């Protein structure tokens, strides 16, 4: 008898757990038959907690916030000067990307199905992008990745609803190799220190591949892969001190990059070899005079100080700096560029006047070419879903008079020079000698 009652109680507990989730559902029902003036809803996903929050997540989020604010006010420069998206205001919901792939996928579904957002813009981790892409396809949910780098997203499968305006990471490593070879023509030896996870491994693979093509005589000496967030790099610095390499490639970012720079500087490694930091741009405003002069700096594309001197850039870096008291870094630019691309696609699809659906926006986004704060983006790879841009590398110098970081000796590489042509996988393109590069 007692047990029967237990079973009943369990049923009640189960129902209660389900019921706990229901109110949100009613909210959705209430909003479905919305009036025409209802705002467009965007889900913005980036790291709001954990180690990737400070360098990427928060700048990305801030970039979205300030751009959407300007769009809603209609103060952005033309052709982005229509209010919101096509005259309708845009509302954003910010979600933390932290957690397992299961969490990220669940939160994505919640955004699309529970909150019924019109599009999701976000994702920093390549793993999360790879996990979200198939779900986005299954749900036919328009999704724009803004920062994740892996080329696999459009190489593994054709996608219909997934876009990425920012170029994939191959460009970063190829650009780094091209700049290095251009500046150090007689390089004989180089080393690499990259974090032991997909990003670090991929970056190094692309870099060494590009170096083999561009400087076949130079040899890779020390190849170091400390664990992610190792914090202490004493042994790595020692190993590198024993190397005769002229350059050191690193795709370290934020915490590890800054920690490494402090530690190598205390032991003078940068006096012996030039450091090429492919994400260095996102750290210059914190490292300031602690970033060694002469370091080769990349910013995952033409962002920040590497961005072209156009009206959009002036507008964006001004509104961002005014609000957050620090200049925008590349994640902010990537976010801005992605949002502006999405806005154009939306407005193109909405040309008829009615609110466009995901298919219409996707069709409009496909193959789009547009110009934003970081210059021109051409959606040409991945059947028009993956953007390419020019990239730029430069040499760091701290301007003591102005007390400001500077990037000098900037070299710009056209998009077709550092990106594979459509239809060819990045890995294969590099391995085959980067054929068809137009520099």
């Amino acid at each position, binding site marked *: 008898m007692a047990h029967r009652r*237990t079973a009943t109680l369990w049923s009640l507990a189960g129902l209660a757990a389900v019921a706990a989730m229901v109110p949100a559902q009613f909210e959705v029902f209430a909003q479905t038959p919305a009036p025409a003036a209802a705002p467009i809803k965007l889900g913005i996903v980036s790291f709001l907690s954990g180690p990737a929050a400070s360098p990427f997540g928060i700048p990305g989020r801030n970039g979205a916030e300030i751009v959407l604010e300007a769009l809603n006010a209609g103060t952005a420069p033309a052709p982005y000067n229509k209010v919101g998206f096509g005259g309708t205001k845009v509302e954003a919901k910010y979600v933390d990307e932290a957690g*397992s792939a299961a969490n990220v996928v669940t939160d994505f*579904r919640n955004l699309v199905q*529970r909150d019924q957002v019109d599009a999701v813009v976000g994702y920093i981790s390549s*793993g999360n992008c790879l*996990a979200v892409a198939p779900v986005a396809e299954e749900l036919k949910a328009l999704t724009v990745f803004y920062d994740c780098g892996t080329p696999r997203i459009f190489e593994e499968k054709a996608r219909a609803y997934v876009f990425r305006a920012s170029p994939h990471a191959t460009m970063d490593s190829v650009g780094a190799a091209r700049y290095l070879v251009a500046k150090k023509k007689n390089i004989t030896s180089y080393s690499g220190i990259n974090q032991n996870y997909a990003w670090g491994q991929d970056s190094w693979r692309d870099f060494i591949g590009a170096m083999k093509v561009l400087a076949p005589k130079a040899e890779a000496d020390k190849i170091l892969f400390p664990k992610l967030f190792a914090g202490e790099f004493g042994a790595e610095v020692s190993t590198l001190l024993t190397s005769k390499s002229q350059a050191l490639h690193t795709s370290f970012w934020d915490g590890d990059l800054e920690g490494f720079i402090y530690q190598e500087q205390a032991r003078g490694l940068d006096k012996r070899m030039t450091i090429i930091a492919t994400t260095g741009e996102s750290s210059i405003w914190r490292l300031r005079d602690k970033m060694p002069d002469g370091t080769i700096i990349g910013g995952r594309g033409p962002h920040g100080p590497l961005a072209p001197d156009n009206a959009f850039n002036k507008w964006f870096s001004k509104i961002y700096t005014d609000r957050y008291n620090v200049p925008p870094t590349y994640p902010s630019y990537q976010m801005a560029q992605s949002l502006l691309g999405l806005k154009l696609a939306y407005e193109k699809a909405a040309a008829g006047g009615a609110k466009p659906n995901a298919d219409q926006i996707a069709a409009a986004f496909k193959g789009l070419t547009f110009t934003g704060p970081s210059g021109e983006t051409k959606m040409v790879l991945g059947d028009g879903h993956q953007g390419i841009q020019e990239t730029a590398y430069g040499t760091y110098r701290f301007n003591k008079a102005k007390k400001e970081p500077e990037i000098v000796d900037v070299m710009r590489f056209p998009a077709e020079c550092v990106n594979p042509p459509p239809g060819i996988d990045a890995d294969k393109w590099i391995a085959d000698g980067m054929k068809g590069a137009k520099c």
Partner: protein
Amino acid sequence: MQSRASLLGGLALLVAAALAAPFLPDWMVSLATIAFANALVVLGLVVLWRVGLVSFGQALYYCIGAYAVALTGRWTGFTDALALVLLGGVGAGIVAASIGFLLARYREIFFAMLSLALSMILYGVLVKTESLGSTDGFSVATPTFFGYAPHGAQLSHWLYWLTLGVDAIAALLVGLYFRSVAGALAAPIRDNEIRVEFLGISVSGIIHTKVIIAGVLGGLGGALAAMSIGHVDPNMAYWTTSGGFVFVTVLAGSGYVAAAFVGSLAFEALRSFAVDVMPQLWQMTLGSVLLLTILFLPEGLGSLVSRLRQRRAVKP
């Protein structure tokens, strides 16, 4: 009589949960699928916890189950969901059986630490395996059901039903196990191992069985989760994943088999809610709930039921 009553109750709950699927929004079904898949791992931890052992490395089996499914699909193109789930369970079970020889010698915190070390070694191996995408992982082929290949909402319903089915069978078998000699010895072993040995039974043998059961359940859970998420990555073996499972175990308590399922669902709902409502403070929310559970509901959510029952029993 007693077991028949809880069996009927469980069955009613199962049928209700299964029938509810078409009426619930899709995101809720997906959330419940992942929750119920994870609940299997939690059930395994409950089996261990009854004997006083906590594994901070249960993600090892979860990850093995998940990768078994994903790799089979990737290498052979085989996608039958049920067979893949069983494969995940068996694969994890084999691993559990082999490392069980080692683990069964350990108790208390040492058991927790060694299982943590083992799961972290798998994590390291997967991170090193660039051909499998390292930390990015890779996607899982869309599962089929005896040749039937559903899509969209149909797919999530079928995965949900499959998960419920596996859960039901697992719950039934674990319930029977708790009533067997080996299962009933959990409290005695926790209380007094030497006495158990002197009753003529091998304590390490029994713990070994429990490690295997927990391993199989972990593998099944991982396999189902992999199909439901559609993606696997080494993070599934990381210690924080194990920590999450232990968290739910504490939330659920070890008193009832059903608590693992309700606890897991409650946890997923709570996490979803916290991320939604306070994206910057969700860790604090989860931590506080865990803390309050330990302080005020030391036997977990399950004890709410027994408390209610006692209160009712007191009333005429």
